[in-house]
């Protein structure tokens, strides 16, 4: 697998960065590593501080992927930025709810709501 292969589609809306996961399944260790690095790079290399993660393509994700999201959340908070998650389908939302991560993350129903007041 190429380390440079993009796992996120990046779009800009004003000063907000929208990162959309390309994969349906965020399970594979190598893939999760790449996704993590691409996410962290948004904050660390590009100094983006308003970030929305769009989950509309995502049908499965594992606890290893949750770990990367938690680390991402810490990095954004450390940079005094805002991170929001949106368009998380009900099955996946349940994974966040079971692990109580719906309390840690700012989760919105759709992209419009995520952009509001960002």
């Amino acid at each position: 697998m190429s380390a440079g292969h993009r796992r996120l589609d990046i779009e800009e809306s004003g000063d907000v960065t929208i990162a959309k996961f390309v994969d349906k399944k965020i399970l594979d260790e190598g893939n999760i590593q790449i996704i993590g690095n691409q996410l962290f790079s948004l904050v660390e290399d590009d100094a983006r501080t308003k970030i929305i993660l769009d989950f509309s393509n995502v049908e499965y994700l594992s606890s290893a992927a949750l770990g990367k999201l938690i680390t991402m959340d810490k990095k954004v908070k450390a940079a005094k930025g805002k991170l929001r998650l949106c368009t998380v389908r009900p099955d996946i939302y349940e994974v966040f709810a079971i692990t109580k991560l719906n309390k840690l993350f700012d989760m919105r129903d759709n992209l419009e709501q995520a952009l509001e007041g960002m």
Partner: protein
Amino acid sequence: MSSTEEFDVTIPSDTAKGREVQEQIVGGMESRGYSPRDVFGVRLALEEALVNAIKHGNKMDPDKVVNVKWEIDEEHVRVVIEDQGDGFLVKDVPDPTDEENLDKPGGRGIMLMRSFMSVVEYNESGNRLTLEKRTDDPDDDD
């Protein structure tokens, strides 16, 4: 009446091989008409369980293997996953939903398995895990 099918597969400590077994089991559920919700939960639990066995149990040691046995019919799927690692004590795994652990990146796999499966049982030494999903599981809607 449905007939129960049994399988017994041994794989190397390779998560890609683990995923192949996962696909076999989930494929068996889909062909037997399990609900998408049950399939989602079992797939997620198997992912966590197999990654745990390969990474934390066998520590990716290429000389160690993971044995996966399963039986499946229209009413239940029961999977026994055994690694060749030293095992662990389930009670030593911290609760990831405790306030002080909430922002820690690890420790959520077992919790997700417990939530999505009807039965999650480790043997005493912690290297053999039994997972079972029953279609009549009353916890289904929580």
